[in-house]
């Protein structure tokens, strides 16, 4: 963990001092880069809003809990504990939602339990697929996203199955 906190300041220090040696005008370059931040957020905003509203609906309506209880026997057959089914379902939609859920799992089952360890792997091996698809394609006119989304979901799901299996030995 020590190394990780050193990484970011070191990175800035190295790059900026190298840039100075190459006679880059630091202030001018840095501000030129920052100029793009606000327009970028503006293009992302509609997609962020839609996805976050959708994930809020998905969770608060009880749809995710309902799906989780319907799917949990099938998930259990694959070695995924029923307690983390909701996490597996929510993860593609919402990063903050699944972080909160992971915290709940820690407090109800203990951070060192098998369930919590499976939850960690389920949380860490995949990403927020729908959110990323909205953001990465925000500036393109690409509409046919079903295939890449399905592939990502499948790959992440396979990783959860594999990870829960690994948690039994490692």
């Amino acid at each position, binding site marked *: 963990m020590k190394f990780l906190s050193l990484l970011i300041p070191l990175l800035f220090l190295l790059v900026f001092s190298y840039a100075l040696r190459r006679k880059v005008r630091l202030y001018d370059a840095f501000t030129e880069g920052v100029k793009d931040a606000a327009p970028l957020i503006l293009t992302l905003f509609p997609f962020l809003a839609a996805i976050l509203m959708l994930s809020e609906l998905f969770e608060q309506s009880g749809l995710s809990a309902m799906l989780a209880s319907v799917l949990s026997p099938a998930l259990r057959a694959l070695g995924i504990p029923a307690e983390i089914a909701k996490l597996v379902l929510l993860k593609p939609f919402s990063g903050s939602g699944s972080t909160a859920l992971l915290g709940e799992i820690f407090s109800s089952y203990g951070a*060192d339990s098998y369930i919590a360890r499976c939850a960690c792997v389920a949380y860490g091996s995949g990403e927020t697929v729908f959110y990323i698809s909205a953001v990465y394609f925000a500036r*393109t006119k690409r509409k046919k996203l079903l295939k890449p989304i399905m592939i990502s979901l499948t790959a992440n799901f396979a990783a959860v199955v594999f990870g829960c299996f690994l948690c039994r030995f490692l």
Partner: protein
Amino acid sequence: MNGIFGAVFLLSALLFLIFDPDGFLGALLAGGQKAATLSLSLLAVYCVWLGFFKVLEKSGLAGNLSRRMLPLARRLFRSDDPAALGDACGNLSANLLGLPGAPTPLGIRAAERFCAANNFYAADMLFVLNATSLQLLPATVIAMRLAAGSSAPADIFLPTLLSTLLSSALGVLLLSLTSRRKRRRKR
């Protein structure tokens, strides 16, 4: 995306109508609120990294770095566009290092450039790599376990690493198997 949005939205709205009609607007507003606060914090994050990346670019280091990764990236993305590949390499490196928020601006620019050249395969590949997670060290999870009083917070490192490697490899494999190679090079 339209299909998924419609299906999840309608099903959830129906459930709200049956069980909790008063909660519907509240849930939508909560989502909007999150979008507003998230975009403000993302604005701060992008200010830092976009500034940093411009310095990196002007110093010539970014060019050096992506030139090293180029042969591999060219095959992975089936593209010859050095600007787009450079952004994509930056995105992948920032992901591997786990720099919070840094991969996104580069990834968006790379996807934009790939799509402008009609290389949708490359944009899809970049998306799949990002969506299957490339982070080598699950820092958030380890910190959370530490805070929750775990006796060995880092012992999930190996299973997480192995399964995230599997998800990325599987994603790349599935995408390249389901895409015809004809689109290769220009077009």
